[in-house]
């Protein structure tokens, strides 16, 4: 049963990544593109966690923690750059 649930979640998050990729490529504005990239990082964290459950290893948690941090920092840096024209003032 856990196998079917894992396959369903894999499909859902893969499809979610494709939606985000569509929004990155065909975005009406700059902020939508930044938001779609942030959502891609969040979906990648979910996919890494699902892969860890599937393989029975805790090795991927460090990777997803790094994804969470890098996604947040890059989004804030990009928004700051758009707002002020500079990241570290």
């Amino acid at each position, binding site marked *: *049963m*856990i196998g*079917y*649930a*894992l396959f*369903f*979640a*894999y*499909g*859902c*998050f893969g*499809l*979610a*990544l494709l*939606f*985000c990729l*569509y*929004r990155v490529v065909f975005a*009406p*504005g*700059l*902020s*939508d593109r*930044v*938001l*779609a990239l*942030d*959502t891609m990082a*969040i*979906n990648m*964290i*979910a996919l890494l*966690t*699902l892969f*860890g*459950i599937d393989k*029975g290893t*805790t090795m991927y*948690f*460090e990777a*997803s*923690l790094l994804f*969470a*941090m890098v996604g*947040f920092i890059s*989004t*804030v840096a990009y*928004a*700051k750059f*758009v*707002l002020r024209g500079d990241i570290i003032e």
Partner: protein
Amino acid sequence: MIAEIVVSVLLVVGGFFGLVGSYGLVKLPDPMTRLHAPTKSATLGVGAVLIASLIWFPARHGHLTWHELLITLFLFLTAPVTGYFIAKAHMHLGWSRDELPRPSPGKDWATFCDPDKESLVDRRAGDRPNG
């Protein structure tokens, strides 16, 4: 067996919410409403998947790890900050301050003002250093 059912339900719920969050990014009409879908729904989906992983490892493999709880807390703390920053960048990119509705009568948006001039928070006159 019970752990397997709980983990399966959490995985299905998490996958559904993650899909809804990213589909809303494509479906919803304008940028401010598009901001709602990933910051709320996708964060909830990832949280459900991480909690499922937190239950699954002690139940199947017999060792408890706290990494998932750390990642969940980090995501739930940073998602509002991310949404706030993107909304602020969008307000400065897409609108002039005259097009926006007033947040309250006689007040301006805090992000368009000088830092010490005007804010949504009502301050007493004596709080400001230069009057």
